[in-house]
Protein backbone atom coordinates (compact mmCIF):
# COMPACT_ATOMS: atom_id res chain seq x y z
CA UNK A 1 0.00 0.00 0.00
CA UNK A 2 1.64 3.15 -1.10
CA UNK A 3 1.77 6.18 1.15
CA UNK A 4 1.15 8.15 -2.01
CA UNK A 5 -2.26 6.54 -2.39
CA UNK A 6 -3.27 7.21 1.23
CA UNK A 7 -2.01 10.76 0.85
CA UNK A 8 -4.02 11.14 -2.33
CA UNK A 9 -7.18 9.92 -0.61
CA UNK A 10 -6.59 12.08 2.46
CA UNK A 11 -5.82 15.13 0.38
CA UNK A 12 -8.93 14.79 -1.75
CA UNK A 13 -11.16 14.19 1.25
CA UNK A 14 -9.89 17.40 2.82
CA UNK A 15 -10.09 19.41 -0.40
CA UNK A 16 -13.69 18.25 -0.60
CA UNK A 17 -14.27 20.21 2.62
CA UNK A 18 -12.02 23.05 1.53
CA UNK A 19 -13.51 25.89 3.53
CA UNK A 20 -13.80 23.91 6.74
CA UNK A 21 -10.32 22.45 6.32
CA UNK A 22 -8.80 25.89 5.76
CA UNK A 23 -10.60 27.35 8.77
CA UNK A 24 -9.38 24.49 10.92
CA UNK A 25 -5.82 24.94 9.73
CA UNK A 26 -6.16 28.67 10.43
CA UNK A 27 -7.19 27.80 13.99
CA UNK A 28 -4.16 25.59 14.47
CA UNK A 29 -1.94 28.20 12.83
CA UNK A 30 -3.23 30.92 15.13
CA UNK A 31 -2.54 28.82 18.21
CA UNK A 32 0.96 27.98 17.02
CA UNK A 33 1.68 31.60 16.13
CA UNK A 34 0.50 32.99 19.46
CA UNK A 35 2.43 30.35 21.36
CA UNK A 36 5.58 31.17 19.40
CA UNK A 37 5.18 34.92 19.92
CA UNK A 38 4.50 34.51 23.65
CA UNK A 39 7.47 32.16 24.00
CA UNK A 40 9.73 34.57 22.15
CA UNK A 41 8.56 37.46 24.33
CA UNK A 42 8.95 35.54 27.59
CA UNK A 43 12.32 34.13 26.58
CA UNK A 44 13.41 37.52 25.32
CA UNK A 45 12.59 39.07 28.67
CA UNK A 46 14.42 36.30 30.48
CA UNK A 47 17.40 36.43 28.14
CA UNK A 48 17.82 40.19 28.34
CA UNK A 49 17.45 40.06 32.11
CA UNK A 50 19.88 37.17 32.34
CA UNK A 51 22.37 38.86 30.04
CA UNK A 52 22.29 41.91 32.29
CA UNK A 53 22.97 39.72 35.31
CA UNK A 54 25.57 37.55 33.64
CA UNK A 55 27.29 40.65 32.38
CA UNK A 56 27.29 42.54 35.68
CA UNK A 57 27.17 39.86 38.39
CA UNK A 58 29.75 37.23 39.30
CA UNK A 59 29.00 33.72 38.08
CA UNK A 60 29.98 32.22 41.42
CA UNK A 61 30.46 33.65 44.89
CA UNK A 62 32.39 31.90 47.64
CA UNK A 63 31.73 32.97 51.23
CA UNK A 64 32.84 31.62 54.59
CA UNK A 65 30.71 29.66 56.98
CA UNK A 66 29.26 31.25 60.16
CA UNK A 67 32.02 33.45 61.57
CA UNK A 68 32.40 36.89 63.15
CA UNK A 69 29.80 39.06 64.76
CA UNK A 70 29.37 42.45 63.31
CA UNK A 71 26.10 44.33 63.09
CA UNK A 72 25.20 46.86 60.48
CA UNK A 73 25.07 50.52 61.54
CA UNK A 74 21.58 51.95 61.80
CA UNK A 75 20.13 55.41 61.35
CA UNK A 76 18.56 56.38 64.62
CA UNK A 77 16.74 59.55 63.63
CA UNK A 78 13.97 59.46 61.08
CA UNK A 79 14.79 61.01 57.73
CA UNK A 80 14.05 64.65 57.32
CA UNK A 81 15.08 65.76 60.81
CA UNK A 82 18.03 68.11 60.98
CA UNK A 83 21.31 66.50 61.96
CA UNK A 84 22.25 62.86 61.93
CA UNK A 85 22.72 60.41 64.73
CA UNK A 86 24.16 57.07 63.81
CA UNK A 87 24.40 53.99 65.95
CA UNK A 88 27.72 52.70 64.80
CA UNK A 89 27.78 49.38 66.56
CA UNK A 90 25.55 47.12 68.48
CA UNK A 91 27.73 44.35 69.76
CA UNK A 92 24.80 42.66 71.43
CA UNK A 93 23.11 41.74 68.18
CA UNK A 94 24.36 38.61 66.47
CA UNK A 95 24.88 38.75 62.74
CA UNK A 96 25.73 36.24 60.08
CA UNK A 97 29.15 37.62 59.28
CA UNK A 98 31.02 34.92 57.40
CA UNK A 99 34.55 35.96 56.55
CA UNK A 100 37.13 33.89 54.74
CA UNK A 101 40.41 33.84 56.61
CA UNK A 102 43.71 33.32 54.77
CA UNK A 103 42.11 34.14 51.47
CA UNK A 104 45.36 33.98 49.44
CA UNK A 105 45.52 30.24 50.11
CA UNK A 106 41.88 29.87 49.09
CA UNK A 107 42.52 31.90 45.94
CA UNK A 108 45.43 29.63 45.13
CA UNK A 109 43.36 26.50 45.66
CA UNK A 110 40.51 27.88 43.62
CA UNK A 111 42.74 29.10 40.79
CA UNK A 112 43.97 25.58 40.18
CA UNK A 113 40.47 24.58 39.03
CA UNK A 114 39.92 24.48 35.27
CA UNK A 115 37.22 26.65 33.80
CA UNK A 116 37.59 29.79 35.94
CA UNK A 117 38.81 32.96 34.29
CA UNK A 118 38.83 35.40 37.21
CA UNK A 119 38.96 35.14 41.00
CA UNK A 120 38.31 38.42 42.74
CA UNK A 121 38.32 38.74 46.54
CA UNK A 122 35.98 41.31 48.08
CA UNK A 123 35.02 42.74 51.45
CA UNK A 124 31.41 43.74 51.96
CA UNK A 125 30.65 46.47 54.45
CA UNK A 126 27.43 48.18 55.42
CA UNK A 127 28.46 51.77 55.98
CA UNK A 128 27.02 55.21 56.25
CA UNK A 129 27.83 57.48 53.36
CA UNK A 130 28.04 61.18 54.13
CA UNK A 131 28.45 64.10 51.75
CA UNK A 132 28.11 67.80 52.21
CA UNK A 133 24.46 67.45 51.30
CA UNK A 134 23.23 64.04 52.39
CA UNK A 135 23.80 61.12 54.74
CA UNK A 136 22.55 57.64 53.93
CA UNK A 137 23.37 53.98 54.49
CA UNK A 138 25.37 52.54 51.63
CA UNK A 139 26.56 49.08 50.86
CA UNK A 140 30.31 49.35 50.30
CA UNK A 141 32.28 46.71 48.44
CA UNK A 142 36.02 46.58 48.73
CA UNK A 143 37.63 45.09 45.66
CA UNK A 144 40.80 44.89 43.70
CA UNK A 145 39.59 47.17 40.85
CA UNK A 146 41.23 45.36 37.92
CA UNK A 147 40.05 41.92 39.06
CA UNK A 148 36.60 43.15 39.99
CA UNK A 149 36.21 44.78 36.61
CA UNK A 150 36.93 41.48 34.90
CA UNK A 151 34.18 39.87 36.97
CA UNK A 152 31.42 42.45 36.70
CA UNK A 153 32.60 44.61 33.79
CA UNK A 154 31.85 47.92 35.50
CA UNK A 155 34.38 49.85 33.42
CA UNK A 156 31.99 49.46 30.48
CA UNK A 157 29.13 50.81 32.58
CA UNK A 158 30.64 54.12 33.62
CA UNK A 159 28.36 57.09 33.16
CA UNK A 160 30.55 59.81 34.64
CA UNK A 161 34.25 59.85 35.53
CA UNK A 162 36.41 56.82 34.74
CA UNK A 163 37.06 53.36 36.15
CA UNK A 164 40.80 53.71 35.56
CA UNK A 165 40.86 56.83 37.74
CA UNK A 166 39.26 54.73 40.50
CA UNK A 167 41.66 51.84 39.90
CA UNK A 168 44.69 54.12 40.07
CA UNK A 169 43.84 55.82 43.35
CA UNK A 170 42.92 53.92 46.56
CA UNK A 171 41.57 57.17 47.93
CA UNK A 172 38.66 57.14 45.51
CA UNK A 173 35.22 55.59 45.24
CA UNK A 174 33.29 54.21 42.24
CA UNK A 175 29.69 54.90 43.06
CA UNK A 176 26.54 53.31 41.68
CA UNK A 177 24.16 55.77 40.09
CA UNK A 178 21.39 55.10 42.62
CA UNK A 179 23.74 55.72 45.53
CA UNK A 180 25.10 58.81 43.79
CA UNK A 181 21.57 60.13 43.41
CA UNK A 182 20.70 59.42 47.06
CA UNK A 183 23.86 61.05 48.30
CA UNK A 184 23.66 63.81 45.70
CA UNK A 185 27.29 63.49 44.77
CA UNK A 186 29.26 63.37 41.52
CA UNK A 187 32.79 62.74 40.24
CA UNK A 188 35.47 64.85 41.93
CA UNK A 189 33.32 65.48 45.00
CA UNK A 190 34.14 64.27 48.50
CA UNK A 191 32.44 61.30 50.16
CA UNK A 192 32.92 60.05 53.72
CA UNK A 193 32.20 56.42 54.60
CA UNK A 194 31.63 55.51 58.24
CA UNK A 195 31.83 51.86 59.25
CA UNK A 196 29.98 50.17 62.07
CA UNK A 197 33.10 50.05 64.22
CA UNK A 198 33.51 53.78 63.87
CA UNK A 199 36.29 53.67 61.30
CA UNK A 200 36.22 56.50 58.79
CA UNK A 201 37.25 56.76 55.17
CA UNK A 202 37.36 60.11 53.46
CA UNK A 203 37.43 59.57 49.74
CA UNK A 204 36.65 61.26 46.49
CA UNK A 205 34.20 60.00 43.88
CA UNK A 206 36.14 58.93 40.76
CA UNK A 207 33.35 57.31 38.75
CA UNK A 208 29.59 56.80 38.67
CA UNK A 209 28.31 53.62 37.02
CA UNK A 210 24.94 52.20 36.01
CA UNK A 211 24.35 48.47 35.47
CA UNK A 212 20.59 48.34 35.40
CA UNK A 213 20.66 46.04 38.43
CA UNK A 214 19.36 48.10 41.34
CA UNK A 215 21.28 46.17 44.01
CA UNK A 216 24.57 46.96 42.26
CA UNK A 217 23.70 50.55 41.46
CA UNK A 218 23.14 51.22 45.15
CA UNK A 219 26.69 50.16 46.02
CA UNK A 220 29.92 52.04 46.52
CA UNK A 221 33.06 50.31 45.23
CA UNK A 222 36.24 51.01 47.17
CA UNK A 223 39.68 49.42 47.23
CA UNK A 224 40.00 46.13 49.10
CA UNK A 225 42.49 47.43 51.63
CA UNK A 226 40.27 50.39 52.51
CA UNK A 227 37.34 48.08 53.12
CA UNK A 228 39.46 45.79 55.28
CA UNK A 229 40.48 48.79 57.33
CA UNK A 230 36.87 50.01 57.68
CA UNK A 231 35.80 46.56 58.80
CA UNK A 232 38.88 46.10 60.97
CA UNK A 233 39.82 42.93 59.14
CA UNK A 234 43.34 41.54 58.90
CA UNK A 235 44.93 41.77 55.44
CA UNK A 236 44.25 38.10 54.66
CA UNK A 237 40.56 38.26 55.62
CA UNK A 238 37.86 38.90 53.03
CA UNK A 239 34.10 38.51 52.95
CA UNK A 240 34.24 36.30 49.93
CA UNK A 241 35.52 35.61 46.46
CA UNK A 242 33.74 36.49 43.25
CA UNK A 243 34.42 34.26 40.29
CA UNK A 244 33.83 34.34 36.58
CA UNK A 245 33.59 31.06 34.71
CA UNK A 246 34.73 30.45 31.15
CA UNK A 247 31.44 28.77 30.30
CA UNK A 248 28.05 29.41 31.87
CA UNK A 249 26.88 25.86 31.44
CA UNK A 250 29.78 24.66 33.57
CA UNK A 251 28.84 26.81 36.55
CA UNK A 252 26.92 24.11 38.43
CA UNK A 253 29.73 21.61 38.05
CA UNK A 254 32.21 24.23 39.18
CA UNK A 255 30.10 24.98 42.24
CA UNK A 256 30.28 21.37 43.42
CA UNK A 257 34.01 21.21 42.73
CA UNK A 258 34.63 24.46 44.58
CA UNK A 259 32.62 23.39 47.60
CA UNK A 260 34.47 20.11 47.74
CA UNK A 261 37.89 21.77 47.51
CA UNK A 262 37.38 24.72 49.83
CA UNK A 263 34.74 23.52 52.28
CA UNK A 264 33.23 27.00 51.97
CA UNK A 265 29.77 28.13 50.87
CA UNK A 266 29.53 28.51 47.07
CA UNK A 267 26.56 30.07 45.35
CA UNK A 268 25.96 30.35 41.60
CA UNK A 269 24.51 33.41 39.93
CA UNK A 270 21.37 31.41 39.30
CA UNK A 271 21.01 30.55 42.97
CA UNK A 272 21.61 34.16 43.95
CA UNK A 273 18.83 35.24 41.60
CA UNK A 274 16.76 32.10 42.07
CA UNK A 275 13.60 33.86 43.22
CA UNK A 276 13.41 36.12 40.20
CA UNK A 277 14.18 33.30 37.79
CA UNK A 278 11.51 31.20 39.47
CA UNK A 279 9.08 34.05 39.03
CA UNK A 280 9.98 34.30 35.34
CA UNK A 281 9.52 30.58 34.98
CA UNK A 282 6.14 30.60 36.70
CA UNK A 283 4.85 33.50 34.63
CA UNK A 284 6.20 31.85 31.50
CA UNK A 285 4.59 28.53 32.33
CA UNK A 286 1.21 30.09 33.07
CA UNK A 287 1.23 32.10 29.85
CA UNK A 288 2.29 29.12 27.79
CA UNK A 289 -0.35 26.93 29.38
CA UNK A 290 -3.01 29.44 28.43
CA UNK A 291 -1.81 29.37 24.86
CA UNK A 292 -1.56 25.58 24.83
CA UNK A 293 -5.30 25.65 25.56
CA UNK A 294 -5.75 27.62 22.34
CA UNK A 295 -4.09 24.79 20.46
CA UNK A 296 -6.25 22.25 22.30
CA UNK A 297 -9.32 24.17 21.17
CA UNK A 298 -7.94 24.09 17.64
CA UNK A 299 -7.75 20.32 18.09
CA UNK A 300 -11.53 20.25 18.51
CA UNK A 301 -11.77 21.94 15.13
CA UNK A 302 -9.70 19.13 13.63
CA UNK A 303 -11.92 16.51 15.24
CA UNK A 304 -14.94 18.38 13.92
CA UNK A 305 -13.73 18.40 10.31
CA UNK A 306 -12.84 14.74 10.46
CA UNK A 307 -16.20 13.76 11.94
CA UNK A 308 -17.81 15.62 9.06
CA UNK A 309 -15.62 13.81 6.56
CA UNK A 310 -16.28 10.41 8.18
CA UNK A 311 -20.03 10.99 8.20
CA UNK A 312 -20.06 12.29 4.65
CA UNK A 313 -17.83 9.53 3.34
CA UNK A 314 -19.47 6.45 4.84
CA UNK A 315 -20.18 5.12 1.36
CA UNK A 316 -16.60 5.70 0.25
CA UNK A 317 -15.25 4.07 3.39
CA UNK A 318 -17.48 1.03 2.83
CA UNK A 319 -16.34 0.83 -0.74
CA UNK A 320 -12.68 1.06 0.27
CA UNK A 321 -13.29 -1.69 2.81
CA UNK A 322 -14.96 -3.86 0.18
CA UNK A 323 -12.12 -3.50 -2.32
CA UNK A 324 -9.49 -4.45 0.25
CA UNK A 325 -8.79 -1.65 2.74
CA UNK A 326 -8.31 -3.20 6.19
CA UNK A 327 -9.67 -1.46 9.29
CA UNK A 328 -6.13 -0.45 10.15
CA UNK A 329 -5.65 1.21 6.80
CA UNK A 330 -8.90 3.17 7.14
CA UNK A 331 -7.71 4.22 10.59
CA UNK A 332 -4.39 5.34 9.14
CA UNK A 333 -6.14 7.25 6.39
CA UNK A 334 -8.06 9.41 8.84
CA UNK A 335 -5.12 9.85 11.19
CA UNK A 336 -3.21 11.03 8.16
CA UNK A 337 -5.96 13.53 7.40
CA UNK A 338 -5.69 14.89 10.94
CA UNK A 339 -1.95 15.04 10.57
CA UNK A 340 -2.23 16.87 7.26
CA UNK A 341 -4.44 19.52 8.89
CA UNK A 342 -1.87 19.71 11.68
CA UNK A 343 1.10 20.01 9.33
CA UNK A 344 -0.63 22.72 7.31
CA UNK A 345 -1.61 24.61 10.45
CA UNK A 346 1.75 24.19 12.14
CA UNK A 347 3.74 25.32 9.10
CA UNK A 348 1.49 28.32 8.52
CA UNK A 349 1.62 29.12 12.24
CA UNK A 350 5.40 28.87 12.34
CA UNK A 351 5.67 31.18 9.34
CA UNK A 352 3.22 33.69 10.83
CA UNK A 353 4.97 33.40 14.19
CA UNK A 354 8.34 34.11 12.60
CA UNK A 355 7.01 37.13 10.75
CA UNK A 356 5.22 38.41 13.88
CA UNK A 357 8.32 37.95 16.07
CA UNK A 358 10.54 39.65 13.52
CA UNK A 359 8.18 42.60 13.20
CA UNK A 360 7.71 42.86 16.97
CA UNK A 361 11.49 43.02 17.30
CA UNK A 362 11.23 46.53 15.85
CA UNK A 363 8.76 47.78 18.46
CA UNK A 364 10.42 50.29 20.82
CA UNK A 365 10.48 48.89 24.33
CA UNK A 366 11.04 52.18 26.13
CA UNK A 367 13.93 50.52 27.90
CA UNK A 368 15.27 51.76 31.23
CA UNK A 369 18.84 51.17 30.26
CA UNK A 370 20.65 54.43 29.65
CA UNK A 371 23.27 52.73 27.53
CA UNK A 372 20.72 52.01 24.84
CA UNK A 373 21.42 48.28 24.74
CA UNK A 374 17.74 47.52 24.70
CA UNK A 375 15.92 49.98 22.54
CA UNK A 376 13.46 47.45 21.12
CA UNK A 377 11.58 44.41 22.36
CA UNK A 378 13.88 41.44 22.69
CA UNK A 379 12.25 38.50 20.88
CA UNK A 380 14.23 35.35 21.68
CA UNK A 381 13.44 32.79 18.99
CA UNK A 382 15.07 29.40 18.88
CA UNK A 383 14.69 26.31 16.77
CA UNK A 384 13.81 24.13 19.75
CA UNK A 385 10.78 26.26 20.63
CA UNK A 386 9.60 26.13 17.02
CA UNK A 387 10.11 22.39 17.00
CA UNK A 388 8.21 21.64 20.20
CA UNK A 389 5.41 24.06 19.39
CA UNK A 390 4.89 22.46 15.99
CA UNK A 391 5.19 18.97 17.47
CA UNK A 392 2.62 19.93 20.08
CA UNK A 393 0.23 21.11 17.37
CA UNK A 394 0.81 17.90 15.39
CA UNK A 395 0.30 15.81 18.52
CA UNK A 396 -2.96 17.58 19.34
CA UNK A 397 -4.21 17.14 15.76
CA UNK A 398 -3.24 13.49 15.78
CA UNK A 399 -4.99 12.85 19.08
CA UNK A 400 -8.02 14.78 17.86
CA UNK A 401 -8.26 12.53 14.81
CA UNK A 402 -8.14 9.28 16.79
CA UNK A 403 -11.86 9.39 17.60
CA UNK A 404 -13.13 10.00 14.06
CA UNK A 405 -10.55 7.54 12.68
CA UNK A 406 -11.72 4.79 15.02
CA UNK A 407 -15.27 5.50 14.08
CA UNK A 408 -14.40 5.23 10.39
CA UNK A 409 -12.43 2.03 10.93
CA UNK A 410 -15.26 0.50 12.94
CA UNK A 411 -17.75 1.06 10.16
CA UNK A 412 -19.18 -2.25 8.92
CA UNK A 413 -19.35 -2.00 5.12
CA UNK A 414 -22.40 -4.21 4.92
CA UNK A 415 -24.45 -1.90 7.10
CA UNK A 416 -23.85 1.06 4.83
CA UNK A 417 -24.40 -1.03 1.69
CA UNK A 418 -27.57 -2.53 3.13
CA UNK A 419 -28.85 0.95 3.81
CA UNK A 420 -28.13 1.93 0.20
CA UNK A 421 -29.58 -1.13 -1.47
CA UNK A 422 -32.68 -3.08 -0.65
Amino acid sequence: MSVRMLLGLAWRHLSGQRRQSLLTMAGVALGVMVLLVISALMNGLLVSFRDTIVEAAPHLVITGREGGNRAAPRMLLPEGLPGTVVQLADRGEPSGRTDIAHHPQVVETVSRLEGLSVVSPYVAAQVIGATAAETAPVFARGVSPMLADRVVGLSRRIRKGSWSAFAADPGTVALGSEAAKTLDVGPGERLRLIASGGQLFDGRVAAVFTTGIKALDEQAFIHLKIAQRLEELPADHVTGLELRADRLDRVDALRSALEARTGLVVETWEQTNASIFTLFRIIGTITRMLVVFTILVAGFGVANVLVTVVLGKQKDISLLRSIGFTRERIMRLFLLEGLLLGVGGALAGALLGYVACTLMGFIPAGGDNEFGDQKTLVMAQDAATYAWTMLLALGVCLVASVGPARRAAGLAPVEVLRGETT
Partner: protein
Amino acid sequence: MTLLEARGVTKELAVAGAPPARILDGVSLSVRRGEFVAITGPSGSGKSTLLYLLGGLDHPTSGEILLDGRNLAAMDDDALTRLRNEAIGFVYQFHFLLPEFTALENVMMPMLAGGRVPRREAEARARDLLGEVGLGDRTSHLPRQLSGGQQQRVSIARALANKPLLLCADEPTGNLDTANTERVVELLLTLNRTMDQTVLIVTHEGGVAGKAGREIRVVDGKVAS
Protein backbone atom coordinates in the same frame (compact mmCIF):
# COMPACT_ATOMS: atom_id res chain seq x y z
CA MET B 1 -15.29 -27.76 -10.73
CA THR B 2 -16.80 -26.09 -7.70
CA LEU B 3 -15.52 -22.60 -7.00
CA LEU B 4 -17.93 -21.52 -4.30
CA GLU B 5 -19.89 -23.56 -1.83
CA ALA B 6 -22.24 -22.57 0.98
CA ARG B 7 -23.17 -25.12 3.62
CA GLY B 8 -26.03 -24.44 6.01
CA VAL B 9 -25.41 -20.71 6.04
CA THR B 10 -27.52 -18.84 8.56
CA LYS B 11 -27.46 -15.09 9.22
CA GLU B 12 -29.16 -13.42 12.11
CA LEU B 13 -29.21 -9.69 12.75
CA ALA B 14 -29.55 -8.21 16.21
CA VAL B 15 -32.72 -6.21 16.70
CA ALA B 16 -32.98 -3.87 19.66
CA GLY B 17 -35.43 -5.13 22.26
CA ALA B 18 -36.41 -8.20 20.28
CA PRO B 19 -35.02 -11.63 19.46
CA PRO B 20 -32.53 -11.56 16.55
CA ALA B 21 -34.08 -11.56 13.10
CA ARG B 22 -33.13 -14.56 10.97
CA ILE B 23 -32.37 -13.22 7.50
CA LEU B 24 -30.96 -16.44 6.03
CA ASP B 25 -31.87 -19.86 7.26
CA GLY B 26 -29.66 -22.82 6.40
CA VAL B 27 -28.76 -21.86 2.85
CA SER B 28 -26.70 -24.38 0.92
CA LEU B 29 -25.59 -23.92 -2.68
CA SER B 30 -22.64 -24.35 -4.93
CA VAL B 31 -21.33 -22.44 -7.93
CA ARG B 32 -18.98 -23.91 -10.50
CA ARG B 33 -16.05 -22.04 -11.99
CA GLY B 34 -17.18 -20.08 -15.03
CA GLU B 35 -20.86 -20.12 -14.13
CA PHE B 36 -23.17 -17.13 -14.48
CA VAL B 37 -25.65 -17.40 -11.62
CA ALA B 38 -28.55 -15.07 -10.91
CA ILE B 39 -29.83 -14.84 -7.33
CA THR B 40 -33.41 -13.70 -7.40
CA GLY B 41 -36.21 -13.28 -4.95
CA PRO B 42 -38.69 -10.75 -3.63
CA SER B 43 -37.61 -7.67 -1.68
CA GLY B 44 -36.43 -8.55 1.82
CA SER B 45 -35.93 -12.21 0.95
CA GLY B 46 -32.29 -12.01 1.97
CA LYS B 47 -30.72 -12.24 -1.48
CA SER B 48 -28.41 -9.24 -1.02
CA THR B 49 -27.38 -10.51 2.42
CA LEU B 50 -26.54 -13.86 0.82
CA LEU B 51 -24.41 -12.12 -1.80
CA TYR B 52 -22.51 -10.15 0.87
CA LEU B 53 -21.81 -13.38 2.76
CA LEU B 54 -20.71 -15.22 -0.39
CA GLY B 55 -18.53 -12.22 -1.31
CA GLY B 56 -16.81 -12.14 2.09
CA LEU B 57 -18.22 -8.77 3.13
CA ASP B 58 -19.81 -10.23 6.23
CA HIS B 59 -19.59 -13.28 8.48
CA PRO B 60 -22.44 -15.80 8.66
CA THR B 61 -23.95 -16.53 12.09
CA SER B 62 -23.40 -20.21 11.38
CA GLY B 63 -22.48 -22.42 8.45
CA GLU B 64 -19.53 -22.54 6.10
CA ILE B 65 -18.69 -20.64 2.95
CA LEU B 66 -15.88 -22.13 0.90
CA LEU B 67 -14.29 -20.08 -1.87
CA ASP B 68 -11.68 -22.04 -3.77
CA GLY B 69 -11.38 -24.30 -0.71
CA ARG B 70 -10.92 -21.49 1.82
CA ASN B 71 -13.55 -21.11 4.54
CA LEU B 72 -14.59 -17.47 4.63
CA ALA B 73 -16.62 -17.97 7.81
CA ALA B 74 -13.48 -18.85 9.75
CA MET B 75 -11.39 -15.88 8.59
CA ASP B 76 -10.80 -12.80 10.68
CA ASP B 77 -11.59 -9.36 9.34
CA ASP B 78 -8.10 -8.66 8.01
CA ALA B 79 -7.80 -11.99 6.22
CA LEU B 80 -11.25 -11.54 4.72
CA THR B 81 -10.35 -8.02 3.61
CA ARG B 82 -7.25 -9.32 1.85
CA LEU B 83 -9.26 -12.10 0.24
CA ARG B 84 -11.83 -9.61 -1.06
CA ASN B 85 -9.02 -7.60 -2.57
CA GLU B 86 -7.40 -10.58 -4.25
CA ALA B 87 -10.26 -12.81 -5.26
CA ILE B 88 -13.57 -10.97 -5.31
CA GLY B 89 -14.86 -8.07 -7.34
CA PHE B 90 -17.98 -6.10 -6.43
CA VAL B 91 -20.45 -4.13 -8.48
CA TYR B 92 -23.19 -2.30 -6.59
CA GLN B 93 -26.51 -0.84 -7.57
CA PHE B 94 -25.34 2.68 -6.84
CA HIS B 95 -22.06 2.57 -8.71
CA PHE B 96 -20.03 3.66 -5.66
CA LEU B 97 -17.14 5.34 -7.39
CA LEU B 98 -14.88 7.59 -5.36
CA PRO B 99 -16.14 11.00 -6.48
CA GLU B 100 -12.81 12.80 -6.14
CA PHE B 101 -10.94 10.36 -8.38
CA THR B 102 -10.98 9.92 -12.16
CA ALA B 103 -12.36 6.81 -13.82
CA LEU B 104 -8.80 5.58 -14.32
CA GLU B 105 -7.86 6.14 -10.68
CA ASN B 106 -11.03 4.41 -9.50
CA VAL B 107 -10.14 1.33 -11.52
CA MET B 108 -6.53 1.42 -10.28
CA MET B 109 -7.65 1.61 -6.64
CA PRO B 110 -8.05 -2.15 -5.88
CA MET B 111 -4.67 -2.89 -7.49
CA LEU B 112 -2.92 -0.18 -5.48
CA ALA B 113 -4.76 -1.17 -2.32
CA GLY B 114 -3.45 -4.71 -2.70
CA GLY B 115 0.08 -3.39 -3.01
CA ARG B 116 1.10 -6.20 -5.33
CA VAL B 117 0.83 -4.34 -8.63
CA PRO B 118 3.31 -1.54 -9.43
CA ARG B 119 1.64 1.79 -10.15
CA ARG B 120 2.70 1.89 -13.80
CA GLU B 121 1.36 -1.61 -14.40
CA ALA B 122 -1.86 -0.81 -12.54
CA GLU B 123 -2.38 2.22 -14.73
CA ALA B 124 -1.84 0.24 -17.93
CA ARG B 125 -4.24 -2.49 -16.82
CA ALA B 126 -6.86 0.07 -15.74
CA ARG B 127 -6.61 1.67 -19.18
CA ASP B 128 -7.10 -1.74 -20.85
CA LEU B 129 -10.08 -2.54 -18.65
CA LEU B 130 -11.73 0.80 -19.34
CA GLY B 131 -11.17 0.11 -23.04
CA GLU B 132 -12.85 -3.28 -22.69
CA VAL B 133 -15.94 -1.75 -21.08
CA GLY B 134 -16.05 0.84 -23.88
CA LEU B 135 -14.77 3.81 -21.92
CA GLY B 136 -11.26 4.11 -23.34
CA ASP B 137 -11.93 7.76 -24.07
CA ARG B 138 -13.24 8.60 -20.59
CA THR B 139 -10.24 7.65 -18.45
CA SER B 140 -9.61 11.10 -17.02
CA HIS B 141 -13.26 11.94 -16.38
CA LEU B 142 -14.55 12.30 -12.85
CA PRO B 143 -17.60 10.17 -11.94
CA ARG B 144 -19.89 13.20 -12.00
CA GLN B 145 -18.88 13.81 -15.63
CA LEU B 146 -20.10 10.33 -16.60
CA SER B 147 -23.63 9.02 -17.14
CA GLY B 148 -25.10 6.40 -14.82
CA GLY B 149 -24.45 3.63 -17.32
CA GLN B 150 -20.89 4.80 -17.84
CA GLN B 151 -20.29 4.94 -14.11
CA GLN B 152 -21.57 1.41 -13.76
CA ARG B 153 -19.21 0.24 -16.49
CA VAL B 154 -16.32 1.94 -14.66
CA SER B 155 -17.28 0.04 -11.52
CA ILE B 156 -17.34 -3.23 -13.50
CA ALA B 157 -13.85 -2.43 -14.76
CA ARG B 158 -12.82 -1.76 -11.17
CA ALA B 159 -14.32 -5.07 -10.02
CA LEU B 160 -12.18 -6.85 -12.61
CA ALA B 161 -8.98 -5.01 -11.70
CA ASN B 162 -7.41 -7.78 -9.63
CA LYS B 163 -8.62 -10.59 -11.94
CA PRO B 164 -11.05 -11.92 -9.33
CA LEU B 165 -12.16 -15.53 -9.03
CA LEU B 166 -15.65 -14.29 -8.37
CA LEU B 167 -17.54 -11.22 -9.55
CA CYS B 168 -20.42 -10.24 -7.26
CA ALA B 169 -22.99 -7.84 -8.66
CA ASP B 170 -25.77 -6.49 -6.45
CA GLU B 171 -28.64 -5.22 -8.62
CA PRO B 172 -26.14 -3.68 -11.05
CA THR B 173 -28.89 -2.54 -13.39
CA GLY B 174 -31.39 -1.54 -10.74
CA ASN B 175 -30.67 2.13 -11.30
CA LEU B 176 -30.27 2.17 -15.07
CA ASP B 177 -32.56 2.72 -18.06
CA THR B 178 -33.32 -0.09 -20.49
CA ALA B 179 -30.58 0.72 -22.98
CA ASN B 180 -27.91 0.90 -20.29
CA THR B 181 -29.29 -2.20 -18.57
CA GLU B 182 -28.88 -4.10 -21.84
CA ARG B 183 -25.37 -2.86 -22.22
CA VAL B 184 -24.28 -3.73 -18.70
CA VAL B 185 -25.85 -7.20 -18.82
CA GLU B 186 -24.23 -7.83 -22.20
CA LEU B 187 -20.90 -6.76 -20.78
CA LEU B 188 -21.23 -9.17 -17.86
CA LEU B 189 -22.28 -11.99 -20.17
CA THR B 190 -19.35 -11.28 -22.48
CA LEU B 191 -16.94 -11.35 -19.58
CA ASN B 192 -18.43 -14.64 -18.51
CA ARG B 193 -18.17 -16.15 -21.97
CA THR B 194 -14.86 -14.84 -23.20
CA MET B 195 -12.89 -14.72 -19.96
CA ASP B 196 -14.64 -17.56 -18.17
CA GLN B 197 -15.40 -15.09 -15.40
CA THR B 198 -17.59 -16.54 -12.65
CA VAL B 199 -20.44 -14.09 -12.01
CA LEU B 200 -22.97 -13.98 -9.18
CA ILE B 201 -25.68 -11.41 -9.83
CA VAL B 202 -28.50 -10.40 -7.52
CA THR B 203 -31.44 -9.13 -9.50
CA HIS B 204 -35.19 -8.93 -9.36
CA GLU B 205 -35.50 -8.33 -13.08
CA GLY B 206 -36.69 -11.38 -14.91
CA GLY B 207 -34.98 -10.30 -18.13
CA VAL B 208 -31.57 -10.28 -16.51
CA ALA B 209 -32.18 -13.54 -14.68
CA GLY B 210 -33.35 -15.17 -17.91
CA LYS B 211 -29.98 -14.58 -19.53
CA ALA B 212 -28.12 -16.22 -16.65
CA GLY B 213 -27.03 -19.81 -16.91
CA ARG B 214 -28.75 -20.64 -13.66
CA GLU B 215 -31.14 -18.96 -11.28
CA ILE B 216 -31.11 -19.43 -7.52
CA ARG B 217 -34.33 -18.20 -6.01
CA VAL B 218 -34.32 -17.06 -2.39
CA VAL B 219 -37.60 -16.80 -0.51
CA ASP B 220 -37.87 -15.99 3.18
CA GLY B 221 -34.20 -16.64 3.77
CA LYS B 222 -34.20 -20.06 2.14
CA VAL B 223 -33.23 -21.35 -1.27
CA ALA B 224 -36.48 -22.09 -3.08
CA SER B 225 -35.14 -23.56 -6.28
